[in-house]
Structures are given as structure tokens and as C-alpha cells.
């Protein structure tokens, strides 16, 4: 029966699990089987369709068992509590905790945490506050306990909100609290009690490293600010005190971030000014003094006032930071190469300042300088992952994606990190011609997720077997969380689309891929469901640079906006809408490609079933319905959307009406043309509308791509630019259009089965073959232009490009001041001060090598792109020869 239970666990059949467990329990009366049944009930309520009434059944079962046999496992007790808690029976749970069973929990603090939570949820805040006091007396550094303690004093239940599947993984540091229900007197008395307790904790703190008692003081001052709005000075004072005690710690800014948020801008500046004055009285211990100096700079970064400073001043501060870094390098002389070096963070801050300078001045030199600074840091210690992350974003922006990918790989992002950290590279790769790397990235990620979904049930059963019942629930909920991952769903759509892109020059291969994808039917289902599906966002954005706080946002692509810091929290809502729309639209593509090929393939054949594919009218109806959906997603009716594409193609409307959805609009035009080939709508016969819709697609693609080519500058001088969009244009709408052309040409070719055509059909064929011939010609010339542009970029001698990069750092009155400081240090390292390892590393520093790597990286992207274009040109030329024989 245990085997049977395991089978149901594997199937996530919670009801059958419950029934089997109950049978086992009845047979042998063992506690564990009862708990298996109880967990199965809980799973029905939390993850299935079970109503909350089922919990009553679970409670009844447990109660009966406890009365006759007691309980023997702490985990059983935890499950019992959660069953009661879910029914808001806090009093009952407290009685059990206070009784004999409570002794099952051997760790005192764990017991107190449960007690405090139950009391608070029962509304007995005074008693709960006492319990949290006890916890804090035992564990003086427990921040969560302190927040709960305050929550109890202020009778604020929000402190105990329960988690749901889409609760953010990194909630805001800013603790939400309700204070409005309190009178002045009650608030004052609560604050008085809390302050007295915190003072006691401070006095009792046996070692100086306990931050909690001091942060607790800050939290009290923050709440005073929120309640009265006139406590800013006290909060500033408390922050200064915190700095004097913990200012040397690397976590200082992260500790105080939430407190700074409640201060108005002028008070933040006042705090910063006061801190700066402090910089004259740094610690006498050099590492401590360095830590304090770094904290000052990080606080400045956090306050986000950098964009206000004049360029010269900003540059001056970057220079000072670089000098500070060099001056303090000897402190790391004796460290093991694997240990973090003192002052490492300085180079990250310098990089942030230099990127800000680039954004403001558009002087590329600053951008190159930012890259050089980080590469310099990695030359000295090659393990610093923070540098690698910043570099991979800089390289991505600079069009040197292979380098970015190399840096990404050196981060060793594997297993669960692929879910939380691949956002650093995945979006750029999706818009790149590096298909082999992208394919690996997607394959590895999907394999990891699918493996986990497969293994998860066995691991859940392991938790059952080892009687860790709370983990059973946790594992099932976690699997659901990953199944709803937005990134996973995107990857599931993008992986087959990549395959379709890769095979688009060969219609037979494309058809066999489509066949393996069930002709896109499953993706249509995904598109239908996505609107109502809850999505989870598990990406960890904390380590992203300030200028690209999420995958969708990159400030450097737009004009200077006056930002130098961007909180990465609360961005989920906006992202959720974007991702939903993206998946909804993109998952229509495989089916639309399939139908477009079919539409062009059955053109002049009988309406009977061909190779099991859809008959003609069905294709047309379904494709039209999808076009309607696609248009609706872009905010238009089908007819209006057609008007838009026709208008733009005739030059009556500008391309700007497409907004940022240009690829979607061009895809729409391609599929519209395919549908027109075979449409009987509006009384028109297939083919009669054909030349018009062919012309629409051809001119849209030609004009847009050539327009982009004309405006695009040399890659080496214009980071990012329009290369990703060019790649998308060629590998998506143009490729799909190429497939429609291939399908048409195939129908023209003589085959044994072909019936004799009537005279009117001959005329239509001739009209269509002319249109197809023009399309082939048009696409060929566009692609040749693109390939030529790529080739011209590649052809520029490497040394010229490197010179261009390095000389951008050596112009008078521009970037390069920080670079010079690092160069000076590297040119004559003081071996006695710096030790062997650092001196040797410095001697190996070569900015020209960095320049060469950038140039090579950019060239590889261009070569891959050119290869794609040339493959398409070759395929089109073959079609041209074939059609000439018709």
C-alpha cells in the first residue's frame, strides 16, 4: 500500500493519497499514516480543489488520535498547528502548545515563535509582545522578532500576513505598518515601552557586532516619522549614531535603506552632508577607515543624488575613488587570492559613476573606461562576481555579446540559479544571432526545470517517509511556484521559436519541427490560458546595475532622465502585464507559421485533405481568427490593423505608428499576406488580392530594414544601436515571409499528382508567380545590403578599432582620468607594498587586450549575423532558379 501511496504522490492525486493513507492508518494505527492522510487533506485545500471544510476532517482525525495515542513527532505537532491556524483556531492551538504536547518542541525559541504568532493572530497582542520580548532576550539579533514585537505593541496585524504562491521572493525592505488607528497617547506609550526595551537590549548586548538593538532604535524613530511627520531630525541623528557604530560594515547601506526611504530629499541630503563631515574623523584602523569611506560613497549612491552633480564634480569623485582603491591595495597584500579584497566595492561604484557620465555626455570614452575599470579589477582578483555581472551588462550593451556570455558562464550559473540569475543574459541572447549559445542556454534551463518537476514527487515522498510533514506541503507548493514561473513559460515558447528560426530556410525541416510541436496547437492553448494563469517572478534583480533594473528596462537606451539609482522593488505588477502580453502573442506564432505554410501550400490544390493537414477553408478560417486575435492584442480590429499596415507600406503613415511592437506588426503583415493567398472572404477569390498583400509585406520589410541600415552607425562607435532589432527583423518576419515564399514556389513546381489547371487558374498562377518573383528579388537585395553592412563592419582592421577604443580614453577634456590612475599603478607597482601576487597581476594588465576582446566579440556577432543572411540569400537564389522554370 505504501507503493500505491507513492504512486498517488507521483500523480499529485491528493484525494487518493488521503484514501490510501487512511486505509493504512486503519490497518496498523501508526501516527505517520495518519499524518500522511492529514497532509494529503491539507494539499487538497492549499493546492487542489478541496474546500476549507476538509480541514475540519483533518482536525477531527488528529484530535481523535491524540486522545487515544498522543503525538510523538515534533513535525506532527507543527502540522496540527497549521491545520488549526488555517481555520483561525488560535486558542485551541495555544492550549495544545501549553499542554503536554508542547514539550515535543525541543528548541525553546522555535516554541516561542509559534506561541507569539498564535497569540498575535488571536488578537492577544499584550501577551504576544511579552513572548517576543522573551525571544529577543534569548536572541538579541533577531530582526523579525523585533518587527513582530513592534507589530504587537502597535496592534498591527499586517506583520503576520500569510504567503501565497506569488508572494514576491524579495519583499520590499520597507516594512509596511499600520499606525493610523492609534491615538497620540497610545502611540506615545507604545514607543516609550519599545524604547525602554531596546535600551535594555543595547545595554545587555554582550558584543559590539549585534546590530539588531541599534537598528531597532532606528525602526522606532522611523515609525515616529510615519506617525507624526516631524521626527526627521531624530531619525537623522539615529542614522548618524548607527554609522558611528557600524559605518565600517559592508552591509551598512543595505541595513539603512528602508529608513532613508521615509526621509524627504532635503533631509536625506542633510544626512549625507553630516556623514561627509564625518569623513575627516575616520577610524585609525586602516581597514575600518576604508570601510567607512566606502559606506559614505555607497550612501551617496543610495540616496541617488549623483545625477545632480556637475560632470566635473562627478568625474572628480570617480578619480578620488580610484585613488582610494589604489592607496588601499596594500591592505590586501597578505590575503589569500580567494578571499574578497579590501576596497573591492570601490571599482563597482566607479563603474556606476562612469556609466552615469556616459549617459549624460554620450562620450563613449566613459563607457569604455567603465569596462576597463572592471577588467582591471578582475586582473587583480579574477573571482569578483559583482564585476562580472556589471561587465556582462556593459558588454551586452556594447554589442559584444560573446564576451558578455563568457562572463556569464564564468559565474557558473547552474541548477536553481538558472531560475534566479539567467535574467542577466537571456533577454539579450534571445535578440542575438548566437543561436548555438542561446539554444544551450534554453535547453539547460528547461532541462533543469523539467527534471525538477519530474523528481519533485519522489522528493515529496522522501519527506513523507522521513516524517518531515511540513516539508511535504512546502515541496508541492514550491513545485507549483516554479511551474508558474514567468521565465519558464517564456523559455517554453522561445525554445521552439528558436528552432523554427534556425530551420526557416528549409521548408521541409521547418515542417518536421512544426509536426513535432503538434503544429503549434499546444501553444495556442498556452496563449488561451495565460490571461488567467497566476505567474511567479523568481528572478533576483538585486545584483543588476542601476541603469537596467529589470530585464525590460535599460535607461541607457533613452535620453538622460536624471536618475542614478533605481529601487528594484515593486516592479512586478508592471512586468506581469508585459510578460502575459508577450507570451499570449508569441505563443500564437508556431500555429500561425504552420497555417501560413498550409495556406500557401494548398493554393491551387484540391480542397481535400493533403497529408492529413487541414483542408483549405478551415485553414483560412483559423488563420483569420488568429489574425484577429493578434490584431486585438496590438489594440486594433482586424480591418483597422490591415489599414495600418497598408497605410505604412504606402507611405501614408509613418513607421512610428507601430510603436515598440514593430516586429509584431511586421509578423502580422506576413501572416495577413499568407492568409490573403487563400482567402475567400469578401467574395474575393484566392489570388486576386495577392499582389496587393505581397506588395505590402515586401515594402514594409524592405523600407524598414534599409531605413535601419542607413541610420545605424559603426558598431564600434555606437553601443547597442539597432543591431538587435535588425537581427530580429531578419530572423523573424523576414524568415516567416521566406517560408510563405518557399511554400508558394513548391506548389508551382510540377509534380506527378498535379491536375491540369483551367485557364483562369493559369492566369492566377502567372500573377502570383510574378508577385513571388518580386518578393524573392526584394528580399534578396535587402539581405545583400545587410550582409554587406556586416561585412564592412568586420572588414575594418582590428588595430584601427582597438585604437579607436583606447584613444577615446586619452583625449583631452574627456574620459580617461580614472583609467590613467589605474595605468600609473600598473606601470610601476611597488612590490614591497603590494606583495608578489598583486604586483604580478598588475604587470599582466593590458588595456589593448581588453580592446581586442571587445572587437573580436563584436565581430563574432556580426559574422554570425552575416552567416544567417547569407544562408537566406542562398535559399532565395535557389527559389529564384526554381521559379524561373515555372
Amino acid at each position, binding site marked *: 500500500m505504501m507503493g500505491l501511496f507513492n504512486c498517488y504522490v507521483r500523480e499529485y492525486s491528493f484525494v487518493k493519497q488521503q484514501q490510501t493513507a487512511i486505509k493504512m492508518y486503519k490497518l496498523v494505527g501508526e501516527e505517520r499514516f495518519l499524518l500522511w492522510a492529514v497532509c494529503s487533506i491539507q494539499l487538497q485545500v492549499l493546492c487542489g480543489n478541496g474546500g476549507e471544510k476538509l480541514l475540519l476532517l483533518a482536525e477531527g482525525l488528529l484530535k481523535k488520535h491524540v486522545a487515544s495515542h498522543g503525538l510523538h513527532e515534533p513535525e506532527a505537532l507543527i502540522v496540527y498547528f497549521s491545520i488549526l491556524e488555517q481555520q483561525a483556531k488560535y486558542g485551541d492551538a495555544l492550549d495544545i502548545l501549553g499542554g503536554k504536547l508542547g514539550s515535543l518542541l*525541543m528548541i525553546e525559541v522555535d516554541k516561542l515563535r509559534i506561541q507569539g504568532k498564535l497569540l498575535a493572530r488571536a488578537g492577544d497582542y499584550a501577551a504576544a509582545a511579552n513572548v517576543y520580548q522573551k525571544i529577543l532576550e534569548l*536572541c538579541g*539579533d*533577531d*530582526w*523579525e*522578532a*523585533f518587527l513582530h514585537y513592534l507589530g504587537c505593541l502597535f496592534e498591527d496585524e499586517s506583520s503576520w500576513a500569510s*504567503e501565497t504562491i506569488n508572494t514576491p*521572493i*524579495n*519583499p*520590499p*525592505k520597507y*516594512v509596511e505598518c499600520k499606525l493610523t488607528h492609534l491615538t497620540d497617547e497610545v502611540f506615545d506609550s507604545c514607543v516609550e515601552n519599545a524604547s525602554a526595551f531596546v535600551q535594555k537590549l543595547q545595554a545587555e548586548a554582550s558584543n559590539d*557586532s549585534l*546590530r*539588531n538593538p541599534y*537598528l531597532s532604535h532606528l525602526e522606532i524613530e522611523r515609525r515616529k516619522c510615519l506617525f507624526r511627520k516631524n521626527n526627521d531630525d531624530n531619525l537623522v541623528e539615529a542614522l548618524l549614531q548607527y554609522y558611528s557604530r557600524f559605518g565600517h*560594515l*559592508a*552591509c551598512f547601506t*543595505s*541595513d539603512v535603506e528602508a529608513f532613508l526611504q521615509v526621509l524627504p530629499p532635503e533631509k536625506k541630503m542633510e544626512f549625507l552632508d553630516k556623514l561627509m563631515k564625518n569623513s575627516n574623523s575616520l577610524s585609525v584602523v586602516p581597514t575600518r577607515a576604508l570601510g567607512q569611506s566606502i559606506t559614505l560613497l555607497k550612501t551617496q549612491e543610495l540616496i541617488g543624488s549623483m545625477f545632480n552633480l556637475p560632470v566635473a564634480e562627478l568625474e572628480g569623485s570617480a578619480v578620488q575613488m580610484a585613488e582610494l582603491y589604489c592607496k588601499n591595495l596594500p591592505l590586501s597584500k597578505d590575503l*589569500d587570492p*580567494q578571499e*574578497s579584497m579590501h576596497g573591492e566595492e570601490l571599482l563597482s561604484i566607479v563603474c556606476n559613476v562612469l556609466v552615469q557620465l556616459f549617459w549624460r555626455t554620450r562620450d563613449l570614452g566613459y563607457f569604455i573606461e567603465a569596462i576597463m575599470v572592471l577588467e582591471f579589477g578582475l586582473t587583480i582578483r579574477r*573571482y569578483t*562576481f*559583482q564585476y562580472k*555581472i556589471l561587465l556582462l551588462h556593459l558588454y551586452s550593451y556594447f554589442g559584444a555579446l560573446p564576451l558578455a556570455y563568457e562572463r556569464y558562464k564564468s*559565474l*557558473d*550559473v*547552474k*541548477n*536553481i*540559479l538558472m*531560475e*534566479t*540569475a539567467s535574467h542577466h543574459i537571456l533577454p539579450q541572447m534571445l535578440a542575438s544571432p548566437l543561436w548555438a549559445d542561446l539554444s544551450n542556454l534554453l535547453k539547460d534551463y528547461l532541462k*533543469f526545470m523539467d527534471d*525538477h518537476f519530474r*523528481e*519533485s514527487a519522489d*522528493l515529496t515522498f*522522501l*519527506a513523507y517517509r*522521513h516524517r*518531515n510533514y*511540513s*516539508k511535504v506541503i*512546502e*515541496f508541492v507548493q*514550491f513545485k507549483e*511556484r516554479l511551474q508558474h514561473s514567468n521565465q519558464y513559460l517564456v523559455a517554453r515558447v522561445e525554445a521552439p521559436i528558436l528552432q523554427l528560426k534556425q530551420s526557416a530556410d528549409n521548408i521541409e525541416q521547418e515542417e518536421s519541427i512544426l509536426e513535432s510541436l503538434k503544429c503549434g496547437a499546444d501553444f495556442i492553448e498556452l496563449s488561451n490560458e495565460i490571461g488567467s494563469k497566476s505567474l511567479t517572478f*523568481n528572478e*533576483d534583480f*538585486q*545584483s543588476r546595475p542601476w541603469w537596467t533594473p529589470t530585464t525590460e528596462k535599460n535607461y541607457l537606451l533613452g535620453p538622460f532622465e536624471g536618475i542614478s539609482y533605481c529601487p528594484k522593488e515593486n516592479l512586478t505588477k508592471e512586468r506581469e502585464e508585459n510578460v502575459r502580453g508577450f507570451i499570449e502573442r508569441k505563443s500564437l506564432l508556431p500555429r500561425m507559421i504552420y497555417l501560413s505554410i498550409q495556406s500557401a501550400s494548398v493554393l491551387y490544390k484540391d480542397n481535400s485533405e493533403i497529408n492529413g493537414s487541414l483542408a483549405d477553408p478551415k485553414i483560412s478560417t483559423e488563420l483569420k481568427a488568429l489574425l484577429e486575435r493578434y490584431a486585438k492584442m496590438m489594440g486594433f480590429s482586424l480591418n483597422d490593423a490591415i489599414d495600418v499596415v497598408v497605410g505604412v507600406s504606402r507611405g501614408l503613415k509613418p513607421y512610428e505608428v507601430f510603436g515598440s511592437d514593430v516586429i509584431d506588426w511586421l509578423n502580422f503583415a506576413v501572416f495577413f499576406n499568407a492568409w490573403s493567398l487563400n482567402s475567400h472572404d469578401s467574395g474575393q477569390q484566392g489570388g486576386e488580392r495577392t499582389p496587393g498583400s505581397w506588395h505590402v509585406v515586401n515594402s514594409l520589410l524592405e523600407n524598414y530594414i534599409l531605413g535601419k541600415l542607413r541610420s545605424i552607425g559603426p558598431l564600434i562607435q555606437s553601443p547597442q544601436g539597432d543591431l538587435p532589432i535588425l537581427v530580429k527583423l531578419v530572423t523573424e518576419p523576414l524568415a516567416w515571409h521566406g517560408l510563405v515564399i518557399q511554400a508558394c514556389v513548391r506548389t508551382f513546381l510540377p509534380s506527378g499528382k498535379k491536375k491540369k489547371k483551367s485557364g483562369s487558374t493559369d492566369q492566377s498562377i502567372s500573377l502570383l508567380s510574378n508577385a513571388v518573383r518580386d518578393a524573392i528579388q526584394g528580399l534578396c537585395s535587402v539581405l545583400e545590403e545587410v550582409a554587406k553592412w556586416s561585412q564592412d563592419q568586420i572588414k575594418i582592421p582590428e588595430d584601427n578599432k582597438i585604437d579607436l577604443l583606447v584613444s577615446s580614453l586619452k583625449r583631452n577634456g574627456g574620459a580617461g582620468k580614472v583609467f590613467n590612475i589605474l595605468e600609473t599603478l600598473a606601470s610601476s607597482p611597488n612590490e614591497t607594498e603590494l606583495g608578489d601576487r598583486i604586483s604580478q597581476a598588475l604587470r599582466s594588465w593590458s588595456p589593448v587586450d581588453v580592446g581586442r576582446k571587445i572587437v573580436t566579440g563584436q565581430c563574432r556577432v556580426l559574422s554570425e549575423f552575416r552567416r544567417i543572411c547569407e544562408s537566406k540569400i542562398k535559399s532565395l537564389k535557389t527559389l529564384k532558379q526554381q521559379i524561373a522554370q515555372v
Partner: protein
Amino acid sequence: MTTIRRFCCNDLLRFASVNLDHLTETFNMSFYMTYLARWPDYFQVAEGPGNRVMGYIMGKVEGQGESWHGHVTAVTIAPEYRRQRLAKKLMNLLEEISDKIDKAYFVDLFVRASNTPAIKMYEKLGYVIYRRVLRYYSGEEDGLDMRKALSRDVEKKSMIPLKRPIRPDELEYDSI
């Protein structure tokens, strides 16, 4: 401002800042989840404000007779929170659970022979090098088996160093 509590699955989604460090291995899911399913008390996380993972420890309890011991599989701290004695706190917790709840004789751990900073730290926490395991790490680098006796091992027999190094196949347990 550190809350130390049991590690849960969602913490796997929060530990990137810790695990991106080159010395911290990111294992496969079944590895983490086996530890969670079997020894949930030996997998603890130190958490800062906003559920930030400051560091974590994972371990297990195993063995027979006088070899019944706690084992530290991994202990790691995010760069931002280093040099604050947090690893010591986590180690003490695991030792306490091994000692008080599971009544183990000792706690042991494996460390790369080249990882001098970690070896020094463990020595400060009372661990001694019990034996060297030849080519323990991917058949290349030697590992050091370090031990600390708990109260049940009154005579501290468990930490008397072995005189000769051993091969990985001589290990009593799969000690990852």
C-alpha cells in the same frame, strides 16, 4: 539583525547573492531537497531585513555507535555580511542541535586542503584536522576531514588525529 531559522525551498530563490561567490557550490535540486526532507533541522538560514539571505548552513546527522555525528556539508556567507562572525553562529547552532537533540559524539566537515582561510576559521571554532583524504575533490585536490568533539565524547576520542592519510574509498560515509 539576523533571524536564524530553518531553510525553506523559497530560500533557494533568494540565495543567488551568496551562491554566485566562486567558493560556494550550487548543488542540484534533489541534493538540497534531500537534506530538507531528511534533516530539516540541519539546514538553517540567516536572514536579514526584506528576507535577504545573509548566509546558510546545511548538514546532516549520521553514523553508528561512537561514529554517530553531525556533519557540516556547506556553510557560506554573502560577501556583504562577512567578517561579522555569522559563520560561527551558524556552526554553533548545528553543533548544538547535534549535541543536545541528536546526542551525537562529534561534528565533522570536509574542506579543500588549499582553502587556508576556511581552515583557519574552523580551527578558531575548535575543529582539528582529523585526517587528510587524498584526491577527495574531483580526484584532484586533497580534502581535510576536520572534527570537533561534542559533550557525549567526554574523552574527545573522536578528534585524535589519524596518522596516515586515507583514500576516498576508505571513507565510512558519503560525506558530502
